[in-house]
């Protein structure tokens, strides 16, 4: 496909142009049943096993709205500081495409449930307020697989096969107002916004927000205007952005591509583009078939929604502590710097550290292990910190063993390694690998005697007053004990045996 775009280096693009962003995020709600029928929403079921006459649009079937989905949408709106409609309706969005068997999607158009909110996100130590235009409720589509052609893409496919298990799962769409003034931080602001939104959803418990399973999906709108201009440029909409990192890359890639076109006097085509995970670039997904002529009209099969203000007030009063507030509280409780807190946030370690502290570990130790040894191991294994096969309870146990003097840090790392390797709980690993510090004075004393005999030169230096030389002897003891000696006690004993006052 002749779509290899010329790019302008990011720094140059930002010198010449100013980006304007818009983000549309779709969140699949975690209800047990679908939006308008009682079919299960469980992910990964065999094809067409979670379908019924309503979500297959068989004649005579009628939709009835899921109360929990309405409630969840209102709670999302409240968490995003939105006004909640006192009266609104669903609308039919008509389009001819086999992923919705009705040939329309039930959505909301000019009467969304929630409007005019905001979400504050932190980027580079600064708070950026992202304004929310609307939050509305709709239904998800079926899943198409394109058969034939070289790439499994819709273009060039011979035909498609469709699984309607996902069709009708409640889907909330959250649309920002145009985000201006982000300047060169645009990619980071986009990522920080989706990250924060995901955490808000998680704290509300309304969705499992797993981007890799598609329960949180993001469309990224980007336009550029020349520096000094106040008139926005033509925007593109990039779909298929399925990870937080991809959100950042998609914005950056689109800025570089659009800047190159504009700099050569070209025009941006208003179109849908597809993000490619492998290259970080977007390609045109334009098609006359996607002409946006949806002929919206009020859904006659469903009655209006008129949320009782008292009910809305009670939902608001019962909102959980929001993630940004919680982070502030935890930062104070743990006494960590902004920088350390931001690092934990970026590493998705806050929940883990909190759970480890709850399991009895001091905050400093919990943070040290998760952000140090365990982060390193997760990085090596290419997995998320939370997916490591170790629990906060295990980590708390290790910190306890270190605090009690049963382990030193070096042995503790071996215990963590054993737990990660599936050798059992920390206690079991200590037992199996024989990792306790040698605290038996007799055993330690014997090791020291041997080391002093083997290192007579160093021992003489210490005797002669060069106390610094004791380090080599302690090192020898640690080596001879394979790391299991208590280094502090070993040093005391060596000095004692050599008749030197420490």
């Amino acid at each position, binding site marked *: 496909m002749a779509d290899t775009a010329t790019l302008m280096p990011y720094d140059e693009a930002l010198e010449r142009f100013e980006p304007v962003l818009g983000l549309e995020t779709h969140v699949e709600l975690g*209800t*047990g*049943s679908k939006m308008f*029928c*009682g*079919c*299960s929403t469980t992910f990964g079921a*065999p*094809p*067409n*096993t*979670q*379908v*019924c*006459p309503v*979500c*297959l649009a068989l004649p005579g079937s009628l939709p*009835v*709205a*899921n*109360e*929990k*989905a*309405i409630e969840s949408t209102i709670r999302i709106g409240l968490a995003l500081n939105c006004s909640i409609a006192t*009266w609104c*309706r669903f609308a039919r969005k*008509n*389009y*001819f495409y*086999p992923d919705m068997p009705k040939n329309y999607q039930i959505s909301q158009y000019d009467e969304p449930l929630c409007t005019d909110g905001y979400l504050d996100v932190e980027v580079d130590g600064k708070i950026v307020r992202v304004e929310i235009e609307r939050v509305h409720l709709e239904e998800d589509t079926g899943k*198409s*697989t*394109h*058969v034939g*052609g070289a790439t499994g893409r*819709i273009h*060039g*496919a011979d*035909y*498609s*096969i*469709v*699984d*309607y298990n996902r069709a009708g799962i409640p889907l909330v769409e959250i649309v920002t107002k145009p985000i201006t003034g982000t300047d060169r931080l645009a990619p980071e602001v986009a990522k920080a916004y989706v990250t924060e939104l995901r955490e808000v959803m998680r704290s509300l418990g309304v969705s499992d927000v797993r981007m890799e399973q598609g329960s949180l999906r993001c469309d990224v709108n980007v336009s550029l205007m020349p520096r000094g201009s106040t008139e926005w440029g033509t925007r593109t909409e990039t779909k298929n952005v399925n990870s937080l990192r991809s959100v950042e890359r998609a914005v950056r890639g689109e800025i570089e591509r659009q800047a190159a076109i504009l700099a050569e006097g070209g025009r941006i085509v208003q179109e849908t583009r597809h993000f490619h995970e492998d290259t970080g670039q977007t390609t045109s997904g334009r*098609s*006359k*078939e996607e*002409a946006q*002529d949806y*002929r919206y*009209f*009020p*859904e*006659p099969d*469903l*009655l*209006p*929604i*008129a*949320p009782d203000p008292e009910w809305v007030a009670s939902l608001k009063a019962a909102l959980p502590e929001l993630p940004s507030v919680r982070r502030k509280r935890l930062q104070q409780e743990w006494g960590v710097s902004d920088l350390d807190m931001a690092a934990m946030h970026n590493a998705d370690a806050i929940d883990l550290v909190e759970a480890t502290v709850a399991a009895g570990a001091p905050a400093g130790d919990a943070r040290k292990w998760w952000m140090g040894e365990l982060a390193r191991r997760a990085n090596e294994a290419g997995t998320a910190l939370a997916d490591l096969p170790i629990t906060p309870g295990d980590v708390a146990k290790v910190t306890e063993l270190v605090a009690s003097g049963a382990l030193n840090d070096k042995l503790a790392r071996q215990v963590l390694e054993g737990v990660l390797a599936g050798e059992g709980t920390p206690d079991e690993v200590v037992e199996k690998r024989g990792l306790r510090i040698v605290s038996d004075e007799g055993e330690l004393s014997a090791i020291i005697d041997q080391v002093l005999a083997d290192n007579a030169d160093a021992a003489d230096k210490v005797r002669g007053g060069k106390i610094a030389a004791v380090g080599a002897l302690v090192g020898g003891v640690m080596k001879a004990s394979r790391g299991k000696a208590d280094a502090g006690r070993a040093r005391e004993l060596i000095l004692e045996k050599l008749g030197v006052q420490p």
Partner: protein
Amino acid sequence: MSAITRDEVAHLARLSRLALADDELDHFAAQLDQIVGAVARVSEVAAEDIPPSSHALPLTNVFRPDEVRPGLSPEGALSGAPAVEEDRFRVPRILGEEA
């Protein structure tokens, strides 16, 4: 003046994937024009104090509890499909004419 033009009917036909011949476009344009004209008469009696409605019943907030109920078996679901492959509905090429 017509409420709906022949071009608009052709556009709607394309969106609906209906292959209408020239004489059919004329035929339906006239019929649709009559329908749109009839519906437009509602606005003659609509007054400020009559809220627009999309439903015949004066009801709101009709919901169902979030409970899973059994649906169709895959065999039942696919029994009316013109073509089936791998337990999925097989549909003709989607972007055929442009690929």
